[in-house]
């Protein structure tokens, strides 16, 4: 089985369904728009901030505020790409055409990842520039230390979120179940764990908290995170790898 054939096929699959377009455009619009809104609000609030807050104000990270909501659309994208094969029954047709299950799964994930990467990068840069435009004289520039890394990392973060969702969906084989677990996981549990001091230490090893470290340029005051930006991204990559291996094992083992 030529891998190129699988990739072509998966590209046709991904571009021929409406859900790809609307999930990805939602991710773009929400991330950028919310980032711009928060940036504009931050600028007007800046004068009222405490000295400490002003000291740790991170214009780059502020323009990525939309990511927290935009990532949900990325999760939906990742889940639907994989789990819709199961919910529609297409999986049987697909596996009859590509019986090498590893080639099938990783061909699919490669195509979806590449698409997510392109969209994620574009979104990240757009969110940065438009967010900075809202911040006026508070703005950071791409040449400042750590900023390019943060903007680039923002794109990687979006991509890894989508990949993680694909792995989880491959394990759970149902879009409703996958979304039912991933949505609260990223939207609620992560922030709840982060709110309490005792659980915070555990919470920051979750994929989204660890991964989003890469988007920070100015660390918060009293930050005792035991990893740096790239370390955080590394933790997230480990999560993604684990999810993908899990998905692969499930697909390999179970009857379609």
């Amino acid at each position, binding site marked *: *089985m030529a891998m190129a*054939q699988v990739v072509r096929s998966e590209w046709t699959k991904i571009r*021929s369904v409406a859900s790809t377009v609307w999930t990805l455009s939602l991710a773009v619009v929400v991330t950028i728009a919310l980032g711009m809104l928060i940036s504009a609000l931050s600028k007007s609030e800046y004068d009222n901030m405490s000295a400490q807050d002003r000291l740790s104000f991170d214009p780059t990270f502020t323009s990525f505020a939309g990511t927290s909501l935009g990532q949900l659309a990325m999760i939906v994208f990742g889940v639907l790409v994989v789990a819709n094969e199961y919910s*529609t*029954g*297409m999986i049987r047709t697909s596996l009859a*055409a590509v*019986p*090498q299950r590893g080639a099938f799964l990783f061909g699919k994930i490669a195509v979806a990842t590449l698409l997510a990467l392109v969209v994620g990068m574009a979104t990240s840069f757009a969110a940065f520039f438009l967010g900075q435009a809202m911040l006026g004289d508070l703005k950071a520039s791409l040449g400042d230390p750590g900023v390019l890394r943060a903007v680039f990392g923002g794109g990687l973060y979006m991509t890894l979120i989508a990949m993680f969702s694909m792995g989880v969906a491959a394990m759970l084989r149902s879009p409703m179940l996958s979304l039912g677990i991933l949505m609260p996981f990223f939207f609620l549990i992560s922030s709840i764990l982060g709110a309490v001091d005792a659980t915070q230490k555990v919470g920051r090893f979750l994929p989204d908290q660890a991964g989003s470290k890469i988007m920070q340029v100015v660390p918060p005051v009293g930050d005792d995170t035991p990893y740096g930006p790239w370390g955080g991204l590394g933790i997230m990559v480990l999560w993604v790898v684990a999810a993908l291996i899990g998905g692969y094992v499930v697909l390999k083992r179970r009857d379609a």
Partner: protein
Amino acid sequence: MIELEGLTKRYGEKVAVNNLTFAVRPGIITGFLGPNGAGKSTTMRMVLGLDRPTAGDVRIDGKHYDELKDPLKYIGALLDAKAVHGGRSAYHHLLCLAQANGIPAKRVHEVLDVVGLTAVAKKKAKGFSLGMGQRLGIAAALLGDPRILMFDEPVNGLDPEGIHWIRNLMKALAAQGRTVFVSSHLMSEMALTADHLVVIGQGRLLADTSMADFIAQNSRSYVRVRTPQREQLLDVLHEAGITVAGSGSEVLEVEGDKSERIGELAAQHRIVLHELSPQQASLEEAFMRLTAESVEYHAHGGQPAGQQGAQQEWGAEWRRG
């Protein structure tokens, strides 16, 4: 050629397919019959490598399914008309399958034409009727121009014209020397389509035989004779040692397949025959007889007259009350 050897599938305690061994040969249509829950679909899924056998082996032209390079060029299957992403158009559905097996896009247009879906090729599959979905599934099976075709309940949802079409399509494919393996619950349809039968019940092989042999082995055959010289013929048959089972005023029924004998005897004794027709039970009758013990969901007692009696009784009761 599809070869199964000792194929077995267990789901926990339940044995879905039990030690199946048979071969599906090219050039003919092989019907695959069995009551619901007999293991037909599981068997077909194992042929396609979708389900893993617990034991035994299934090979396509001597190879395991996942050893086939571009499998759609070897074997095309219609398993489930709904194995389609509803949000994708018929064209794109076929295109992604074609690309996965290195089949040119031109072929997609061809098969759409063959199944008569060209006009709706760009429409999303979720708007398709069952019959249209079935045609799309058939198009996918034909896509790689494979030598082996497998159809699970192909006439499901098709209208009479479509049924006629798929029957002749399968015959044409077999006549071209391809292997055609088709499962169906419609005995009358199978009787018109299949040359050879594989029958399973409760996962076990019950028969692997030609259609004619299957009917002959599993049912009663007799010859119906109509003659204006009834008494004379009765005498002649009696003399020849042929017993007459039933007889009306002008009709005789003779057990067995003896129409040639009777024809010769009548000619010898100058008896005029107005009818001499060998009668055979239907495939349905033969099938029922064979599978009587292995049916999973029995309707109550299988005796509708009895049920209706009970039902009427009940109805009368509440009508009174």
